């Protein structure tokens, strides 16, 4: 029998330039996801293909809930719809006990369709139309006011709605010591705007002031920023009680916990430096517990964690289309998973692994997507075993934001499947066809 063939490669050895942390084998083959063969998935559902592990979602969710519940008596998670609003994904979170957190009328409708009771929907964001607000008021949803224009619109709407009150909170922005400060959403803490907004709300009989909300940023590498934020939220809540004699019902700390991904430009691997759920939980809960609430008036703690709960549960399977040499001799590998379906490749250096066995030889390569556009570059430099046309790859930790921010550009969006906790595979979003696109187009008579 002839020996197995592998494409010839030559690699320059750079003595003295080794990574001081040792070279990391980024390329352990990923042949199975939850015991389901990657090859079988791709044979049946095509390439590219998004795969979601229901088991991983549940495990991560339970880990996060535990970290908070063992430290604080009243905790509630609300699933951040924009992070991944495929219905099947939302339903896993709702089954686990999550409320819904939405930022548009569209997302609000999705939450209702998913059977979430109106009073368990948190409505965030700067864009709520009059119709959205009327619906939210009627459904007793929690309306998180973003700006004074929204506050006055609410007051106007309520004037015409007899005997109806709206349940509201305000979004607060603040300096937590991190740069850049997110100050475009909500009312500022330091300059007194937040307090001012609270005073206006309590002067309105039809506004039921229930909580305080903040979302201090995303991919927060320091848990301490949450301690600073929680401290400011507690100060507002306690001032409110002292002034009115009423207690705040909840403090919502938003999202922003890191997922295991590695940010572009970071020398260290994400998984080595990110805080754990326990770190975040400790920072937030110990601050609230020590801030001076009487035990019977402790507010409910709400979290809108997005990426940290779902990133790890998502995989993108793809196929090598071609390999080539660039003018300077570097290898380039072209795969069918472009930035059109991998929005997060603009932020992260995603982990990419071959889906089949390979030899120990590896080579640096640029990883390009299939689009005929210069922006379609997934990794500037990644060390991968020698891949050839037809080989398959698995891109890991893509569960957050890709299946919502993907764009229909040059090609169509692919199938999404979910592997349930028993290992059964379910198609949860069908790949688009040309009809999905042209059905929305209208050609004027004179151009037909």
């Amino acid at each position, binding site marked *: 029998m*002839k*020996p*197995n*063939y*592998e*494409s*010839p*490669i*030559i*690699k*320059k*050895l750079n*003595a003295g330039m080794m990574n001081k942390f040792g070279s990391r084998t980024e390329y352990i083959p990923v042949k199975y996801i939850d015991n389901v063969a990657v090859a079988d998935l791709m044979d049946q559902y095509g390439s590219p293909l998004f795969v979601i592990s229901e088991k991983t979602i549940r495990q991560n969710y339970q880990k996060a809930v535990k970290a908070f519940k063992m430290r604080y008596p009243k905790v509630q998670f609300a699933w951040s719809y924009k992070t991944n609003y495929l219905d099947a994904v939302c339903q896993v979170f709702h089954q686990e006990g999550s409320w819904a957190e939405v930022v548009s009328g569209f997302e609000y409708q999705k939450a209702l369709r998913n059977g979430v009771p109106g009073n368990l929907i948190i409505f965030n964001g700067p864009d709520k139309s009059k119709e959205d607000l009327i619906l939210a008021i009627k459904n007793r949803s929690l309306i998180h006011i973003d700006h004074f224009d929204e506050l006055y619109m609410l007051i106007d709407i309520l004037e015409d709605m007899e005997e109806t009150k709206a349940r509201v909170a305000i979004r607060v922005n603040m300096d937590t010591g991190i740069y850049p400060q997110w100050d475009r959403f909500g009312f500022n803490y330091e300059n007194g705007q937040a307090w001012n907004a609270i005073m206006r709300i309590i002067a309105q009989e039809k506004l039921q002031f229930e909580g305080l909300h903040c979302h201090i940023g995303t991919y927060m590498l320091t848990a301490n920023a949450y301690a600073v934020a929680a401290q400011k939220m507690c100060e507002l809540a306690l001032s409110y009680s002292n002034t009115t004699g009423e207690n705040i019902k909840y403090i919502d700390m938003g999202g922003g916990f890191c997922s295991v991904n590695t940010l572009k430009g970071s020398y260290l691997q994400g998984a080595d430096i990110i805080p754990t759920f326990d770190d975040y939980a400790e920072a937030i809960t110990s601050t609230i517990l020590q801030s001076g609430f009487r035990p019977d008036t402790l507010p409910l703690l709400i979290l809108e964690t997005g990426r940290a709960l779902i990133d790890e549960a998502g995989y993108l399977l793809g196929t090598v289309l071609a390999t080539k*040499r660039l003018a300077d*001799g570097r290898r380039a590998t072209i795969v069918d998973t472009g930035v059109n379906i991998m929005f997060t490749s603009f932020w992260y250096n995603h982990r990419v692994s071959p889906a089949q066995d390979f*030899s120990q*030889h590896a080579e640096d390569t640029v990883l390009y997507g299939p689009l005929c556009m210069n922006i379609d570059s997934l990794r500037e430099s990644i060390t991968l075993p*020698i891949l*050839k046309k037809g080989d398959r790859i698995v891109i890991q930790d893509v569960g957050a934001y890709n299946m919502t921010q993907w764009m229909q550009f040059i090609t169509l969006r692919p199938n999404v499947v979910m592997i349930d906790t028993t290992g059964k595979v379910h198609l949860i979003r069908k790949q688009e066809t040309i009809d999905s696109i042209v059905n929305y187009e209208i050609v004027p008579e004179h151009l037909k």
Partner: protein
Amino acid sequence: MKVRKNIAISENGFIFNPLTGDSFSVNETGVFILQKLKEEESEATILQNLMDEYELDAHTAEKDLNDFLSMLQNYQLTTNE
């Protein structure tokens, strides 16, 4: 195309260029091709040798050999005399 005379190639794929001080590693297929080049075989012969040695179609063989030879040239390990 020939491999420069003073280039040392070990059996396990370690290459040293005393002129520049650069060292390289090649995989088994790479060693196979380099040995043929040392024996001053022509590209056409090497192509045939590859297909005799491995389970391999002509297109892949040609594409891979071209790519490998261009990299040898790129690293200045070959001459065209």
